[in-house]
């Protein structure tokens, strides 16, 4: 890859990274629906069970 094209490509990538992912956001935030709350509970149960097991090991 020539020096010139590496520079151009990197410059464009740096610009895109900023334009697409940063800057002022005017659209709404992600809202969590009722069904998704169940998902949170399921995942947390997995962790809680492991934490309890860890506590047993340490006791």
């Amino acid at each position: 890859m020539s020096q010139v094209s590496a520079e151009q490509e990197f410059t464009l990538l740096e610009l895109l990274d900023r334009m697409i992912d940063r800057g002022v956001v005017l659209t709404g935030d992600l809202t969590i629906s009722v069904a998704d709350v169940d998902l949170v509970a399921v995942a947390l149960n997995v962790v809680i069970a492991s934490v309890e097991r860890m506590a047993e090991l340490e006791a």
Partner: protein
Amino acid sequence: MHRDIHSDVPDLDLARRTSGDLDELARAAAVQGRAGPHRIDANEQNAGKGIAKLVLSLVELLRRLLENQAIRKMDAGALTDEQIERMGQTFLKLADKLAELKAAFGLEGEDLDLELGSIGDLTDGADHGQP
């Protein structure tokens, strides 16, 4: 086309906006693709998948926090061989469970790294005694 003296927006000039050893950059990019922080796309068409990924990322974060605690205890010599073995087994099971959940929500191969900056650093045992 006739150009008025009052013209359109000046062309964007991206020349000379990058300096440094770009050969090094090209070599690194060729090896590992564009390395950069991973982000959760909150605007995914499948909003459920977005939430699942967020939740599982939190679980992954918690797993790492717990592992980090265990490793600190290991380093401090506070664990017996038996405790190390049993904790390791628990973490192996948790990692398996996480993989199962990822598969269940169609997230295999997805990176569950949350872009958490200094909070995420807590998972790596780094020293946070900053002035």
